[in-house]
């Protein structure tokens, strides 16, 4: 099925509008192209700031302003329950295991391109569109997920779990633009959000202190910080507050190289630390991942690709071997630093994002590393 050949004036597109500049320009561009555009604001999190103002209200005000400027109808939809059940519960569960989850990947998979997409289809839409920096191209009967043109902004890492069904109904109208050009379009069109600051961090935490936020939901258990040789170097505030390869917040002084997190022993509540950014224990040559998902047809067997292990990292050459149990073994050509359980491993063939999985374990010379143990 390829709806992309339908004439714009016969095509209804629901744009997920966040009140930011990217989704504002997304709606604007589609409207200019002649599509029948509807703007919908998703409220996924119930939050009020220190002044008792619902933070989503401000963003929705921006959506209203922009939608009226463009001349499209706008609505709001509430996915707080879906977000809590399908994203936040997962987020907490991962932290309980001492892992570092990626809620944005889950939000795209479960909310934006599932609950929201279903909502849009129910309304009679042909597509949903978002302001992600990514592209979809229909080639040889397949909807291919391609990197955003702006290397610095490419967001396919967060979209790796999308399936053909989801991609068939998705548009990324600014994916072929550079961020600075998006701003220019917003300014030229006089959109109310043209100069609005980009949001940073995890959406539901916003600008708040991460540690404080997490401690509201999960009990923290302070424990010992040790070197891999068992030398106690101090106390940690709770394993969930630390991620692999992290330098800041350890509070270990003394001579020599700075200290880094090099592993966690969840069972005994020990945080392993080591000296030097390139500490040997941070390096692995393979990983095992689960929750594997392909954007197109599943590969027949082992294949060569490039992979990213975190957002905004240059991808590196790997060999990918899907296993019979649905997991995947990824072998790196060169050892990689700080492969972090809970994060996504995402595969590429050139500019095509092939899919991805959730990292469970890292290996060095066939031996599992104590990143989580």
């Amino acid at each position, binding site marked *: 099925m390829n709806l992309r050949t339908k004439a714009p004036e016969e095509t209804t597109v629901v744009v997920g509008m966040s009140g930011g500049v990217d989704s504002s320009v997304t709606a604007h561009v589609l409207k200019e192209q002649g599509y029948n555009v*509807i703007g919908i*604001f*998703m*409220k996924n999190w*119930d939050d009020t700031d220190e002044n008792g103002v*619902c933070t*989503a*209200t401000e*963003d*929705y005000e921006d959506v209203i302003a922009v939608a009226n400027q463009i001349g499209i*109808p706008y*609505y*709001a*939809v*509430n996915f707080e329950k879906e977000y809590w059940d399908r994203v936040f519960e997962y987020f907490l569960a991962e932290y309980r295991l001492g892992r570092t989850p990626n809620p944005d990947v889950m939000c795209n998979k479960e909310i934006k391109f599932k609950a929201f997409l*279903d*909502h849009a*289809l*129910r*309304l*009679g839409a042909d597509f949903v569109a978002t302001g992600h920096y990514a592209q979809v191209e229909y080639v040889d009967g397949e909807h291919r997920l391609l990197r955003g043109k702006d290397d610095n902004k490419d967001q396919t890492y967060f979209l790796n779990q999308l399936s053909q069904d989801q991609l068939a109904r998705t548009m990324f109208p600014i994916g072929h633009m550079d961020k600075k050009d998006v701003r220019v379009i917003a300014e030229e069109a006089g959109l109310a959000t043209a100069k609005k600051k980009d949001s940073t961090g995890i959406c539901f935490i916003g600008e708040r202190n991460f540690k404080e936020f997490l401690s509201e939901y999960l009990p923290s258990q302070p424990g010992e910080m040790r070197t891999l040789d068992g030398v106690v170097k101090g106390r940690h505030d709770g394993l969930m507050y630390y991620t692999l390869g992290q330098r800041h917040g350890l509070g270990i002084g003394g001579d020599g190289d700075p200290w880094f997190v090099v592993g966690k022993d969840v069972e005994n509540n020990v945080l392993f630390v080591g000296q030097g950014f390139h500490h040997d224990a941070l390096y692995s040559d393979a990983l095992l991942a689960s929750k594997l998902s392909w954007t197109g047809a599943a590969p027949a067997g082992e294949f060569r690709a490039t992979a990213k292990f975190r957002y905004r990292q240059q991808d590196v050459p790997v060999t990918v071997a899907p296993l019979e149990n649905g997991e995947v073994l990824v072998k790196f050509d060169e050892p990689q630093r700080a492969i972090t359980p809970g994060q996504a491993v995402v595969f590429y063939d050139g500019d095509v994002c092939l899919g991805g999985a959730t990292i469970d374990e890292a290996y060095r010379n066939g031996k599992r590393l104590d990143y989580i143990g």
Partner: protein
Amino acid sequence: MNYFDHAATTPMRPEVLEAMTPYFLETYGNASSIHGIGRNARAALDSSRRVLAKWIGASPNEIVFTSGGTESDNYALFGAAYAHKEKGTHIITTKVEHHAVLHAMEQLEREGFDVTYLDVDVSGAVDIEAFRAALRDDTILVSIMYGNNEVGTRQPIQEIGELLQDHQALFHTDAVQALGTEEIDVKAIHVDLLSASAHKVNGPKGIGFLFMKTGVKLASRSFGGQQERKRRAGTENVPGAVGFQKAAELVMTEREDRVALYESLDLALRQRLDELGVTYEVNGSNRLPHIVNLYLPGIDLEPFLIMMDMRGMAISSGSACTAGSVEPSHVLSAMYGDSERTRQSVRISFGHGNSVEDAKRLAERLQEVVSTFMNGVR
């Protein structure tokens, strides 16, 4: 006309605009000025006051112009509470009031007043015995709406008014939603304070009044000039008052026709829904004739309202909400408790310009959209 949200606001009648226009362009004087053009404006204001007073069986000097229903409610409640707090701090209201009353009550609670929120029965009406039981010697104010804005249910205002005749408490009623169809005589129902708004009865937005029975004392809420006998400072909205007058005159001459029209629309809507096999129930009874609140089992309210809008049909759910926070209607919650019904009901409100054909078309669009929720269509 596919507008079925007249309880939210109404189109202004051309006659109203025509009546107002000279007071923008020609007789634009300040009604408090000493010169001729000011006096002419003042004369129009007084004439409007006389007509509006007559509309509800009041005297002209009992009408205080305000900016609308919310200001009238706020003035009545805070004004009465502050002026009479030495006589007591107890206030009685209901759980189904408009937010202009409920949120004012919450503020009064924060300021130390003791507010009783009466329950309603499944029809949306308060029980007179429950009211009697709630009434105390130190009750200073009772505020109960005339007819509900979400489901239309009328409250036993006259009975309560009679009960309060030998009591110190002031009796306020928000009649904003009721004045388009109900014949209201403030003496017969024994109210001390009554809120009204023009834009709900085909008048202009931005003007309303508070009926204040002679002798009733309210603490001032605004300070400035000496307008409205020092009860409400601010340059008088003369064109608004003239427009409100015209709208009230239209209500008085057309009342019976309007009631008959709304009843026929209500009937046509429900007959067509029955013919189309739509499962529904009407929320509330003893209703203001222009409001029909329908329970449509199985619908998901947010997409439902969007899909109706996409079909050009303007209807609403009980409570408007911002940024996608669907809070179940407080009115339906008071009637039905924590039930799916509070999240699967829509409000249809008729008005000038709606025809029987319109009501039938609305039923057809409702059927179309309801069916998408029944077939498991994604």
